[in-house]
């Protein structure tokens, strides 16, 4: 059975310039140290990052960190590790004009339609773009 890490959210007290990811020293309670399985899409996300950042040089890993750090607190806390990655990869592909936001949205709609037609459940969550992504 596939297990996922537990998500939790905490207010960052004393913010004032502290980015959403920069939580060292804040009390977030114990860390979930269970090993968890990776889904196929997560492994593909990992492979895509290596291809785009190391082989194709579409962007640097520092740019991906910047996009992930740019999420709001709620979005940052409720997404898993690879969800952050795939969203950042998508944003950077648009930012670097490899694909357009419209192309991504259209493709997502096509895939959703295909799943609905096959009687599968489709997540209602609309994809959210980083605030810094040019649209």
């Amino acid at each position, binding site marked *: 059975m596939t297990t996922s890490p537990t998500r939790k959210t905490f207010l960052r007290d004393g913010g004032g*310039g502290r980015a959403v990811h920069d939580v060292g020293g804040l009390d977030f309670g114990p860390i979930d140290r269970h090993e968890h399985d990776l889904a196929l899409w997560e492994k593909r996300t990992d492979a895509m990052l290596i291809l785009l950042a190391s082989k194709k040089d579409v962007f640097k890993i*520092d*740019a991906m960190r910047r996009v992930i750090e740019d999420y709001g607190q709620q979005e940052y806390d409720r997404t898993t590790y690879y969800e952050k990655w795939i969203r950042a990869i998508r944003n950077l592909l648009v930012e670097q004009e490899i694909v357009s936001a419209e192309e991504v949205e259209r493709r997502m709609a096509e895939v959703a339609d295909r799943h609905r037609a096959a009687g599968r459940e489709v997540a209602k969550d609309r994809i959210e773009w980083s605030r810094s992504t040019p649209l």
Partner: protein
Amino acid sequence: MTAHSQIATRFKVGARVRIADRSALGHCRTPWYLRGRIGEIVEVHGAYHDPERLAYHKPGLPLQVLYKVRFLQSDLWPGYHGPATDHLEADIYEYWLEPTL
């Protein structure tokens, strides 16, 4: 990265430095909990492309010297109860370091 002997370093191993107490304008690699704290240079890693510029698709130049800085845990956390020699090391770029008087 450039070999140690070829890079101009502002700080030497053993120097006491203060981490700049300022907000970052964008992406940065200096943790919040170290800002304004004093530590000691324990190693010069070398000169690297600047992550604060790479994050915005810039070439990351000029290269920035990266140091390993050691902090006493008791200097970082109020009421720290562990042994007085407990420490933490962090990699910090030169433009985040200030000399201590």
